[in-house]
């Protein structure tokens, strides 16, 4: 079998006209050999070590299982730090055909990046060889700040331990970068996370240096040895580093790690931060005495790069979000039951950052199955629960819980009084969008009578979640009440009323409800994105002839 595989590979490679086998393929598990590639536009043949893994011709861990390697070509684009040429090829289950495809891919790389020295418009972050610190993996997330760093600026970084988990088989410490301080500890920049993240407990701090240039060789590989920073770090900074280490040791932290942020501008103008871990007591510096003066000098030591990620809003929601015409709105959600909590969670997942919630109710265990609540937090106020759920999803959403008496007392007990009306109007007009999922007819009536400048959407569903009714102001109260009383077939004979229950409720699963809510929100997003008229609509689903879902536009 092995012999046969080796023969197939040997024969297939021999038949590729621009490839010569320099060292025959051999090996029991990994098959290795050496080839040279030669074709007309290439001035001289190029040599590559070839490694073919046992999974070949299948890919594994989202990577090719054939490697072409030569460290002499590190300066060219799309070459990994170990000299592997970066190729992505198409699937083929036949070894001979797959080899042909892969060598063709190698040839394409040679033409594009070796001969024509093409550089891609798409920028890729520097490649770092990441390593753990005494068996612990560390990861650092940062976001935008409203601050411009100066070349050679240095100081402290404020961070908090966000979570501990597993990365492969090793423990991982996840840190959130909260801001930057100057060398005297005075805050200079605050990261643009939501308030709750900027107030995270478990504070920690690190050191930063902002470099004028990318700390990289071939513009692609981050420095791997501290000595390479000799032209980057200033004497002042090395002295600062030395003083920091002395302080840490004084605080009996010898042997612990300190994150060291190295920042630089990337082509799109953003600041990117690489983070290395420094061991207290073993900083990569030493004091040398020259002309009777002590100075600090960098040591020839490998850098322990940690993981760093730009998690700013742009990247966090880069893969897909609602229109900015919706996400920039200040939104109030009234009622966070099955519908309201689904709305809230979807808005947050789709990039909304200013959301206020109001609900007087308490989450019961039986609410969990169809609302966006967790069992683990037990019986708790729904808005408290939702605030936590939403904040755990997005580091950019600021959630406020609104004083419920506005809706249960001021709006109703003082209905018709001009002062209360104008106070309620002022309060509600401070929002751009109000989404009422409370199913409170009385509140709907009151809201309908107000002079609201903000958009106001009313959402509710029928029993069995057959229909979702979406109404925009000023056509809410009449439209919604008529839909339920005159148009929709809202069968309330078949309600869920278990033993011990004093208030029967509608029947519908999480799947039934969220499907309708998702369609409604897709439509609402489209209305804002396209500027279409805010006309009321019904989302209707039935299983009469297979699943049938439609939007009925009014």
């Amino acid at each position, binding site marked *: 079998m092995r012999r046969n595989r080796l023969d197939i590979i040997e024969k297939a490679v021999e038949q590729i006209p621009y490839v010569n086998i320099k060292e025959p393929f051999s090996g029991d598990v990994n098959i290795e050999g050496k080839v040279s590639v030669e074709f007309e536009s290439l001035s001289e043949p190029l040599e590559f070590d070839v490694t073919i893994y046992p999974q070949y011709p299948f890919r594994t861990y989202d990577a090719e299982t054939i490697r072409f390697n030569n460290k002499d070509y590190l300066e060219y684009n799309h070459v990994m730090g170990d000299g592997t040429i970066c190729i992505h090829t198409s699937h083929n289950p036949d070894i001979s055909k797959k080899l042909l495809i892969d060598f063709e891919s190698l040839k394409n790389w040679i033409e594009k990046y070796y001969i024509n020295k093409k550089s891609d418009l798409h920028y890729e972050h520097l490649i770092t060889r990441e390593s753990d610190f005494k068996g612990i993996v560390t990861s650092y997330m940062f976001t935008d700040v409203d601050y411009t760093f100066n070349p050679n600026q240095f100081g402290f970084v404020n961070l908090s331990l966000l979570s501990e988990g597993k990365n492969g088989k090793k423990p991982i410490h996840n840190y959130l970068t909260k801001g930057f301080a100057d060398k005297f500890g005075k805050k200079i920049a605050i990261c643009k996370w939501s308030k709750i993240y900027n107030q995270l407990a478990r504070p920690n701090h690190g050191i930063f240096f902002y470099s004028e240039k990318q700390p990289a060789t071939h513009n692609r590989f981050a420095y791997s040895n501290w000595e390479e920073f000799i032209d980057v770090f200033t004497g002042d900074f090395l002295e600062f580093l030395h003083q920091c280490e002395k302080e840490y040791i004084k605080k009996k932290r010898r042997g612990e790690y300190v994150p060291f942020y190295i920042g630089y501008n990337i082509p799109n103008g953003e600041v990117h931060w690489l983070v290395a871990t420094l061991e207290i007591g073993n900083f990569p510096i030493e004091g040398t005495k020259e002309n009777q003066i002590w100075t600090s000098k960098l040591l020839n030591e490998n850098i322990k790069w940690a993981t760093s990620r730009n998690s700013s809003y742009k990247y966090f929601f880069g893969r897909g979000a609602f229109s900015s015409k919706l996400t920039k709105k200040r939104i109030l959600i009234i*009622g966070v*039951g*099955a*519908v*309201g909590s689904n709305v809230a969670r979807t808005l947050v997942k789709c990039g909304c950052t200013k959301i206020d919630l109001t609900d007087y109710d308490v989450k019961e265990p039986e609410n969990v199955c169809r609302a966006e609540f967790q069992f683990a937090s037990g019986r708790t106020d729904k808005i408290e629960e939702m605030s936590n759920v939403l904040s755990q999803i997005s580091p950019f959403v600021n959630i406020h819980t609104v004083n419920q008496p506005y809706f249960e007392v001021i709006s109703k007990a003082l209905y018709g009084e001009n002062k209360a009306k104008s106070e309620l109007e002022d309060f509600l007009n401070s929002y751009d969008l109000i989404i009422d*999922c*409370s*199913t409170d*007819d009385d509140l709907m009536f009151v809201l309908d009578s107000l002079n609201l400048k903000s958009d106001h959407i009313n*959402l*509710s*569903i*029928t*029993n069995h*979640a057959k229909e979702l*009714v979406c109404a925009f102001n*000023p*056509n809410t109260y*009449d*439209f*919604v*009440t*008529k*839909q*339920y*009383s*005159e*148009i929709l077939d*809202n069968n*309330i004979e078949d*309600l869920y009323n278990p033993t011990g229950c*004093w*208030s*029967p*409720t*509608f029947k*519908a699963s999480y799947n039934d409800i969220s499907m309708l809510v998702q369609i409604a929100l897709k439509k609402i997003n489209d209305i804002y994105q396209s500027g279409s*008229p805010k*006309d009321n609509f019904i989302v209707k689903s039935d299983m009469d002839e297979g699943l049938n879902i439609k939007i*009925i*536009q*009014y």
Partner: protein
Amino acid sequence: MAINKKEYLQEVLETHKMSHVNSLLDKYRDKRKSIKEALEDYYTDKIYSPLNSGSYAKHTAINTKFDLDVVVPFKKKSFSTLEEMFDDVFDFLNDTYGTEATVRKQKVSIGIIFYKDDDNHEISIDIVPGRELNEDQYNEDNKLNLYVNSKYGLLAEKTHLLTNIKAQIEHIKSKDNERKIIRLLKIWKSSNNEDYKSFLMELITVKAFDKDNISGNLWEMLESTMEYIRDNITKDGFTLSDPGNSGNNVADTLESWQKENLSTKMKNMLDRIEDNSDNLKIYFPVNPDFKEEDNTKSNEGYGVKTGASTFSVPTQNQRFG
């Protein structure tokens, strides 16, 4: 349950008759009279006799939302520019009624909305100043130039608009069927908070009757008119001539996206009513204040049967979330 569309619409019109609000209308008439007198006292020989116009004069008013309109014809020599005329009338009305009403400049008129009285009535009168084109010409042909205060569809602000209010009133005279449809479309507009101009709905209805030989019962006429609007409003070159000035294309008061929206709305309405005739109740509601109660139908609407429940079961119109 399907409804009889013709009978339902007749009920809608019946409940929206102005005769149901005679006492309120008297208050309107009194206010209008006092405003006209004030204008005549102040402007004396600068103006001809103010005349009533608008929906009430045309018999197309509905009792849920209406105002009374007064056209004030100024003589050519009264002001050197239309803007001066417009501003002067505004200043006068604001000085005279500013403490008891909100006085505001509108597109071609000045709106006076009196603060609610003890009966919670809010009276609204629109004053439309216009100036004759040449000296003494108004007596001959009733033509007036109106001042366009703010952008009016394709008409830019600070321009003028030639019209003939009397011709507009004549245009709709003795067109009973058209007036019923216009009133229904105004009920739709008012109850669904659509801000299309009544004048535009009026002209397009009359044109639909002219072009499409609309006939049949009330629903059939309404349906044909809505189909006509759906199919024609977005057509290139579609015009709605102002009977007071054939050069004034009232369709131009809508921008193209507004025409698209109006056409789409007509399509949606027709489709929904086709799906379920009960949807007429959404678009053309009866005025519940003047609905004749029929005891045999007490389980409809928000009557006792649907509203009250003796035990904790949700009512039929219960919403969920």
